[in-house]
């Protein structure tokens, strides 16, 4: 855009010009003015968009430090690639200074070019063009000339105006210099829509800035009946991720974890999973206790913190077990009991059975029980049996199918044979992601604004019609009619054609689309 046509330039350069050399502005002023000119030009904005897109493409094609597998990718690069990409900041391009700078300049460009163009758009609303010459009307993208008979100029204008109104246009009839004008329009506010879209974008940018500056996201692994008062946050230094812990102002206790499977006899892999549930109790000094369940895609909000179900530790455990307890005495009836993890069941004779631990792939290492793998190959429940007499013993319960496997299987302990009939599979721990993000709310506000303003911009248009009524002899009038629209030309064309046909008294029903 040339400086002469740019009102912004005139305003800005005038006070800066030296008083005695008005004709020759100081070079600094001109550089400033030119920079401002550049910053507020749409072309420059397009260039910025292209540059930003190019930087994003680099970030897509070169693996970023926070992506899983970066260490392996980095190890396979040649030393020159490492040096080049590293010094250009390509491994973390979205956090490089020049990426931030591009976003800042783009924001500035949006603001400045909006300031420059807004007054022009505002005149569509504030100062409507109510009259126009026949020549000007004839130069519009849609135009026609009609001959009308009868009445006076005013009544013809009123007819035109009424026809426009039936197309939902707002009309004004004016008289000037002996000529009668009709001006009709709808959706003038649509001229301002584009600015509102840019405001929404800036709000989103602002939210993103808040998140980047003040946001925290960490992880928290929770085992049942354990508590955590901190989360671990990961930072990336090329192939060396570093973890720091961030203390939380409250303590999170895990009361239960549960994994809902599609096929309950199948593995606890993600592909066989419907949902993970983590029940938590937040103990917050001064705010009391709060209980909640965090599920996949169903986060829980608490005082600016959000808890997400992020992942799980897939070592096979059981949430609850179903045992068949058979006393060794002759003729005694077996009894089925269900025990929750770390829970206890009491038998009819007062004997208490505690479900102490679970091994998915049971193996004895010396006298110590352990699991060989995370999979449910040889499941066993470790039980603590306390007789009413005070005598205690440790026992392992196996499924009936494991009867012939090893010395501990099927052996009676404390007078009972105990069989593991069924169990509910679950992982050893669930990992919650904890987020404190003061920017997300702002971003959401920007989203709502953007959705509304985009709909306002693209599904509406500012349509204008002008008509000039001129007398051509006794009772004869010529109506020059024309109009334009800023968007959706095709629909406007249809409307304009129908308007002209209606005014000409033609049968507008005659034109029927053929399928």
């Amino acid at each position, binding site marked *: 855009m040339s400086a002469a046509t740019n009102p912004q330039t005139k305003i800005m350069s005038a006070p800066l010009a030296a008083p005695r050399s008005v004709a020759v502005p100081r070079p600094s002023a001109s550089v400033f003015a030119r920079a401002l000119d550049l910053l507020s030009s749409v072309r420059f904005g397009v260039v910025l968009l292209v540059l930003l897109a190019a930087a994003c493409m680099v970030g897509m094609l070169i693996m970023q430090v926070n992506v899983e597998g970066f260490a392996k990718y980095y190890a396979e690069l040649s030393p020159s690639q490492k040096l080049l990409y590293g010094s250009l900041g390509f491994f973390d391009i979205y956090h490089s200074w020049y990426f931030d700078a591009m976003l800042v300049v783009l924001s500035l460009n949006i603001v400045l070019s909006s300031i420059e163009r807004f007054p022009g758009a505002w005149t569509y609303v504030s100062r409507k063009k109510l009259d126009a010459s026949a020549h000007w009307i004839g130069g519009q993208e849609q135009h026609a000339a009609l001959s009308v008979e009868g009445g006076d100029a005013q009544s013809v204008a009123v*007819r035109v105006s009424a026809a426009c109104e039936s197309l939902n246009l707002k009309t004004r009839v004016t008289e000037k210099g002996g000529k009668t004008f009709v001006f009709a329009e709808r959706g003038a506010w649509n001229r301002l829509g584009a600015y509102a879209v840019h405001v929404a974008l800036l709000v989103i940018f602002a939210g993103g800035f808040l998140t980047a500056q003040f946001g925290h996201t960490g992880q928290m692994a929770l085992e049942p009946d354990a508590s955590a008062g901190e989360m671990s946050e990961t930072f990336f230094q090329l192939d060396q991720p570093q973890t720091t812990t961030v203390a939380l102002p409250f303590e999170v206790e895990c009361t239960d974890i549960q994994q809902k499977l*599609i096929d*309950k006899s199948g593995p606890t892999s993600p592909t066989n999973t419907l949902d993970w549930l983590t029940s938590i109790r937040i103990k917050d000094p001064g705010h009391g206790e709060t209980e909640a369940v965090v599920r996949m895609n169903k986060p829980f909000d608490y005082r600016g913190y959000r808890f997400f179900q992020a992942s799980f530790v897939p070592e096979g455990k059981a949430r609850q077990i179903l045992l068949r307890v058979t006393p060794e005495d002759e003729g005694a009836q077996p009894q089925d009991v269900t025990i929750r993890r770390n829970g206890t069941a009491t038998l009819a004779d007062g004997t208490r059975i505690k479900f102490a631990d679970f091994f998915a792939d049971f193996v004895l290492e010396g006298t110590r029980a352990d699991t060989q793998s995370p999979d449910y190959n040889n499941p066993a429940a470790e039980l603590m049996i306390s007789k009413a007499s005070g005598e205690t013993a440790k026992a392992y319960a196996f499924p009936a199918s494991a009867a012939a496997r090893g010395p501990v299987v099927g052996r009676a302990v404390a007078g009972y044979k105990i069989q593991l009939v069924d169990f509910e599979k679950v992982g050893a721990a669930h990992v919650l992601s904890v987020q404190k993000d003061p920017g997300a709310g702002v971003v959401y506000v920007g989203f709502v604004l953007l959705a509304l303003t985009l709909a306002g911009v693209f599904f509406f248009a500012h349509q204008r019609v002008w008509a000039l009524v001129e007398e051509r002899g006794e009772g004869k009038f010529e109506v020059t009619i024309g109009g334009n629209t800023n968007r959706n*030309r095709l629909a406007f064309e249809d409307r304009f054609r129908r308007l002209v046909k209606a005014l000409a008294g033609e049968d507008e029903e005659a034109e029927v689309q053929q399928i």
Partner: protein
Amino acid sequence: MSQAIKHPATIAAPRIKFRADGLLSFLPVVLAVGGAVALALLRWRTGGEHFPSDGALMMLALACYLTAAIFHLTNLYAPSTLFQRIGLWTATGGVFFNLASWFVRWVATYERELAVITRQGGEMPWFFRYIPFANLYDLSLAFAFGAGLATLLIAHRQNFRFIGALSLPLASIILVLARFIGGEITNLPPVLDSYWRPIHVGTASLSYGVALVCFATAVVYLLKDGVKTEAMAVWSSLFALAVISTVSRFSVFAPATFGTYGASAFFGAGEGRGMSLPLRVELPYVGWLLVASGLLLVGGVALFGRYLARESETARAWGRRLLKLSLVAQGAAIAALVWQVKTLTSVVEHIDPRQYAKFGSYLMEQQGLAAQQVAALSQSQLERAAAEFVRAPGGELFLSLRSNPVELSALIAGFTATLFVVIFSFRTERLRAALPPKEKIDSLMYKTGGVTFAGLALLLMTGAIWANESWGRYWGWDSKETGAFVAFLTYGAFLHVRISRGWTGRAAAYFAIVAFLLIVFTYLGVSYLLPGLHSYA
């Protein structure tokens, strides 16, 4: 000064009524969508027996799209109301089968899990868990539907019906790609089980569909604007050359493997199962046919370049001949590829052992070895492991069209691009005259581009909200996110180019074309080439 006049209310004035007959032109859309819904309900009530599968319906859709495309194209050269009608109604049939296939898939996915869950007395999850937006096959089906639907909606204006001549072949390529990807129904990754999925992916497929139409409009705009078909040929040839030189891991033109094309070995038994391995099986003839196509394209580019620079008519005539020959060679290469994949039996004999070291380390990683452990193994150990795997009895390797879906689709896209340029070079002036005025094409381009821009904004926003619900951050520069963002920026540039003086017209059309290519890159490239959270689709 002007003064306002109050107009008396008594004067009779023409009233313009709401016209119901305008709605009649939307009949194809209503019939296609309504019919598909009715068919889906019927399938839901009556069960899967005696009912066409979703795969069969998809093939019907493909057949309809292709037929409709041919009628649309013919109509451009020899305008005929009959052909136009046949084209429109076959396209309607295509959209109907396309959507019906998607719906039937929804029901089939539900019934599949219903059997497992209810057997164990479990509670059935909500119905939207089974909406077919779970993988790239589903998305492709929806993408093609989006394109078909947009074409039908635009066909509401009679003089825009020509757009089907371009958009329907593109929709067909997407369905062919889907066919190659394979439509087996798999369990849904739990993170995808959210009500945001239908919203987010639905937005994606519809806006991608509109973007496809915008792309087709931009190409037509350039043609109408007088861009020489020779210049188009240069671009389409460069695209086809890029495809030919990158497929099969750059093997076609690489000195060490010159003239060879390898398809990835497929492993794993059963229909609808198995996986593609990073191990290439050389297909006889295909490599040389691709080399021939490539060289002919290079010759064509050089000759057309000479024509464009020096107006040499001889160069132009020879360029056209080479382009046509290359079209034949590309077609032959694709045919040979498909034929070999279907018939080659001695797969192991066609594997170049030079790949074994690299494949060996892949195998070790698959077996759970850490990167350092793999690095500690010697070259010969890795090669031995690979050789043993390849020759292991019971785990036979074979070839499948699902081995390299993107490569195959890219080759078909290159062929189609060449085909269209050849078609455009035939009686170009007549074709230009048959197209609507430039301003109207521009209006359509702006409209579809604007809708795509708004759609992509919605896509990014719903994606961000969903990500914030399930991953704990609304934006993480994940490859798919960034890809969609880049396409959004490019459509933004497209819209702004139109309001910056001196750049209107062609520049905007170029942006619309590049933006769509970026969408395709996001849609396919990210899933197959780049790591990230969206790798499932």
